[in-house]
């Protein structure tokens, strides 16, 4: 097959050439970038959190009875609540904490290790009662979970001497050396009034939002847990409850019943982690759905367009085809001619499209950093559109093949 005549014929059909090349190029640019965004969102959605997400429910309690104004009363009822919740059949563990799963937000502080030279580490910090690691289902990789005696009888002003930290905090503070038994301190390194805390356990890093879904780095795996009860009249109190698989529904009903019996001057709000995760990712889900729809429609539109343009080329050239057939070209020659022509155009479009894909990506990335285009995707898009170009050429090319040589003799 000689490419020369095909190229010379294209010179007479510049419009069609430009249209096909442009259409293929733009389609490649859009499809690869859409898939890229979809993959970035899916990666966020599918990354395991490190918690037993499916079996954890959060309970917020908002008290309105006046006795909750008394801190001692609050401490007392928190202990009672935790005991009551843990006695419900189907409950694995429960903790009173203001640590939130998949809601964004929380509290942060900075810590440093006295005597170790480094910048203070900014980290999340949460109060929790004893069973936090069991409740989250997170693995203690060094040291031990909290135990009785780690937190005393007081309110949030407990001595807070024993803490559990995540691996990433330990690594930043101690450079990979064992952290258990070491001392850390909160706040200003120059402030002599700061009280030291002792690391008793290190847990595996988790993946949990801290900022809002739109912030630059909404996720942080740096956290410190301090043993203390957390609650108040206006803030209410929060519990995390981990259930056995499948027991969620009965546990929620049972816990509400028993806690109401204990003290009814308060409102209970349950929310499962699955529910919160769905809400957290609702934006990502919209993006994935719409991008998928756009890709599908776009490929359909492009296929139709290519089909139309090639059909046009065939009907415009019916007479030439007839002449060539009359001069001895086989049906195969004609079929090959159109396939090769479209293959050339598609390839030219794809070459342009690769540049286009990176240009569009540049446009998108100028604000965002986590959607850099992966080259594998571009290759995938190229192959997809190559096949697509071939498929949309075949029907008109078959029609061209069927043109009879006698056409050449008809009319002028």
């Amino acid at each position, binding site marked *: 097959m000689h490419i020369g005549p095909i190229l010379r014929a294209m010179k007479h059909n510049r419009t069609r050439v430009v249209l096909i090349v442009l259409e293929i190029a*733009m389609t490649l640019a859009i499809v690869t970038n859409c898939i890229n965004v979809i993959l970035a969102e899916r990666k966020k959605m599918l990354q395991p959190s490190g918690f037993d997400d499916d079996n954890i429910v959060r309970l917020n309690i908002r008290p309105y009875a006046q006795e909750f104004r008394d801190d001692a009363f609050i401490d007392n009822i928190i202990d009672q609540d935790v005991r009551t919740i843990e006695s419900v059949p189907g409950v694995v563990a429960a903790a009173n904490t203001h640590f939130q799963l998949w809601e964004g937000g929380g509290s942060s502080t*900075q810590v440093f290790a006295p005597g170790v030279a480094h910048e203070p580490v900014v980290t999340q910090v949460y109060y929790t009662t004893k069973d936090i690691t069991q409740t989250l289902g997170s693995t203690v990789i060094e040291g031990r979970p909290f135990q009785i005696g780690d937190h005393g009888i007081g309110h949030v002003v407990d001595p807070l001497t024993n803490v559990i930290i995540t691996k990433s905090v330990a690594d930043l503070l101690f450079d990979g050396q064992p952290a258990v038994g070491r001392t850390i301190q909160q*706040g*200003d390194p120059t402030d002599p009034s700061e009280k030291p805390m002792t690391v008793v356990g290190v847990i595996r890093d988790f993946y949990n939002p801290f900022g809002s879904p739109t912030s630059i780095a909404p996720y942080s795996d740096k956290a410190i847990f301090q043993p203390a009860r957390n609650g108040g009249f206006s803030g209410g109190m929060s519990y995390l409850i981990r259930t056995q698989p499948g027991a969620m529904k009965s546990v929620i009903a049972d816990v509400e019943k028993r806690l109401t019996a204990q003290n009814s001057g308060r409102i209970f709000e349950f929310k499962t982690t699955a529910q919160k995760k769905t809400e957290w990712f609702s934006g990502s889900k919209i*993006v994935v759905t719409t991008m998928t729809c756009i890709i599908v429609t776009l490929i359909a539109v492009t296929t139709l367009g290519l089909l*139309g343009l090639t059909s046009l080329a065939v009907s415009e050239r019916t007479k030439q085809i007839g002449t060539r057939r009359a001069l001895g070209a086989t049906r195969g020659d004609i079929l090959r001619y159109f396939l090769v022509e479209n293959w050339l155009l598609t390839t030219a479009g794809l070459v342009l499209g690769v540049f286009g894909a990176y240009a569009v990506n540049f446009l998108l990335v100028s604000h965002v950093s986590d*959607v850099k285009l992966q080259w594998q995707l571009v290759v995938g898009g190229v192959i997809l559109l190559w096949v697509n170009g071939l498929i949309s050429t075949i029907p008109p090319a078959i029609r061209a093949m069927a043109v009879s040589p006698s056409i050449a003799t008809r009319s002028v």
Partner: protein
Amino acid sequence: MFGYHLKTALKSLRRNPILTALLIGGIALGICVSTAFVTLRHMYTQDPLPGKSDKVFYVRLDSRGKDSPFGGGISSLSSNMAIPDQITFRDAQNLLHSPVPVRQSATYITRVFVYPDPKVARPFQPDIRLCSADFFDMFKMPFQYGGPWTKANDAKPDQVVVIDDATNRKLFGGDNSVGKEIRIGTRQFKIAGVLAPWRPALRLFDLTRNPAGAPEPLYIPFNLHNTIPYQSFGNNSGWKRQPDVTTYEQLIATSERTFIQYWVELPDPKAVGAYGDWLTGYINDQKKIGRFERPVYYRLTTIPDLIQEWNLTPTGVRAMSVVSLLFLAVCSVNLVGILLGKFLARIPEVSVRRALGASRADIFWQHVIECELIGVIGGILGIALSAGILALLARFMQNGEALRLDGEMLITATFLSLVAGAVAGVYPAWRAASVAPAMQLKLQ
């Protein structure tokens, strides 16, 4: 002549209904997708405070310790420019004394139980925003009954409250409730005003926490902080453990925790300069009592700049609006191909008309009008479809209520469809118009 062109165009479109449907469908699809996502983007990028966006400033102060620079936070500023997202309570109280701003307010949210008439509703615990009298005018919040409380109310401070439309419906059946009282916590509050339904895409006056959330339902004077120990429910950030503080009031008066948002309205650049000087003076005064250990650093930021700095437009929205416009472009390119085929098939007819005296311009305009007709019909269909898509999207969005096709977006969509029609039509029409009459007649 226009009427005649229109008639021929309609006739030509009717001749091949399937092709016409395909053409119109293609444009409608492109317009629908691009309008929907450009509108979604517009929701985040439109002027958040029309006429005032460049006059209302968010105040931030670097009040941190010498060796405790601010880190983390929500800003995209580089670390050497980092500044706490909010200010401390004591700074807020002091800033309120500045004579420079025409309006100013310190603000934060708390949560307190509201006890309505037991016959009407159960106790509930809404987010309550503490702010100053100036706050409502500064953010152009619309009232249906009454209005903001007065500066005199601020000064005392009186127990007055502004409630939103939903709360007014819930507690008073939507009637004018100005002057009535509701119990918040342990105290009675007199209603000063009822807001009209109002749902900005972003909660302008507090972008620190879930900015797409709805404005709070209740507003009370900031100065009540002194008499009622309300806690902050927004983000809190601290760096200094403070000894010998036992009560909440003490903590508030001496704390270095930042949890207050501070807003000022400065009418012109001169006022901005004057306020900057005032802040510098304030920081230097504070240095004398041992605070503000770091170099003098403050930021005055408008809402649009803050939206950019804090990256509040979701990344997906940006990506989708770019992609959807490209999608429209592909639809247009497709249209060019189909129209070209359609017009070229009509060459014999054109050459007869040319031979009978039609000028090139006539042929050209006749075809352009045919394309524009396709563009306009496709556009109208597309706009209708995009309204449907937007309604669907809104159901899944927290701030979906603020998502709608406004006049500006309708004009944009119409413009897009005209452009798409023209882009797709001009070249094929020109090709049709350049047919030589004699040559084609000879071929017949």
